[in-house]
């Protein structure tokens, strides 16, 4: 039951599992918001060296919900897991659930480049693919010349 360190690796392996067992593989996403008491206990267990008082105060203030993605195929018994506590990852993870959803539905895969562009811009801005591609070149141009001018001025 491997737990992957990166969501990319999880997505890749889940995709392969889904290709092998398209009709039986299921993906469960667990959003776990633990009870404050339990969360404090878990924190203590994970970091036994730090002082209890500071831990307790941190546990009260900091959010500690987690999102766990689990791909499971009951026929072969394969489980692929990924866990995170970062809110910034939610959008990207649900987007990868979408790509896996396409595979479940036996839809053709979207071209890799388009996918990469989508992931790069983030799920908030899926539309301006062409704009994103053009902006780096635009900004690089003036910046490059600007640097050159500065250097010339210094000399």
């Amino acid at each position: 039951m491997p737990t992957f360190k990166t969501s990319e690796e999880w997505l890749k392996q889940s995709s392969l599992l889904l290709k092998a067992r398209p009709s039986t593989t299921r993906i469960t996403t667990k959003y776990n918001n633990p009870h404050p008491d339990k969360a404090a206990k878990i924190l203590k267990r994970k970091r036994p060296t730090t002082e209890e008082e500071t831990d307790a105060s941190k546990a009260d203030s900091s959010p500690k919900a987690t999102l766990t993605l689990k791909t499971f195929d009951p026929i072969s018994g394969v489980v692929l897991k990924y866990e995170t506590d970062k809110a910034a990852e939610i959008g990207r993870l649900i987007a990868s659930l979408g790509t896996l959803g396409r595979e479940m539905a036996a839809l053709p895969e979207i071209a890799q480049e388009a996918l990469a562009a989508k992931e790069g811009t983030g799920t908030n801005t899926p539309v301006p693919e062409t704009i994103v591609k053009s902006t780096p070149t635009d900004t690089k141009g003036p910046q490059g010349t600007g640097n050159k001018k500065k250097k010339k001025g210094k000399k």
Partner: protein
Amino acid sequence: MADVHSSNEDFLTGLIKLLEAAHKSGHGSIFLTQKRYTYGTTMKTESDSSSEDGLFPDFNLSEPVPIIVRATNGKGKEKRLEGEKVKISTIVEPNEIEGFFTRYADVCKMGMQGMKKRDRSKRKKGKDKKKGGEKKG
């Protein structure tokens, strides 16, 4: 389990309620599951004659199939009897997957407020502002 699946729209509003409830009570888990929808369907393969397709009828589907997405708050045992258990499901048609998952992502981003925000305290605020300004301009 509810016999009738919700529409995509009802499912998402139900999910919002589930996440809100989990957040209000201070703790609790929400389980979301997605799977190919195969219940009561006979799979149409491109060529029934070849033996390989007979062994793996789900490898070469002639047309896309819907997927089913479920959500539950995982309340069991006595809480199920008290009616606290919520279990909703929806069937997403292949042509609606793109749209559904963008809205699904928004719902999750809004609802999952218990997770760690990006830690900006360690960075120097001045530098961030400068960088942001350059990108915009």
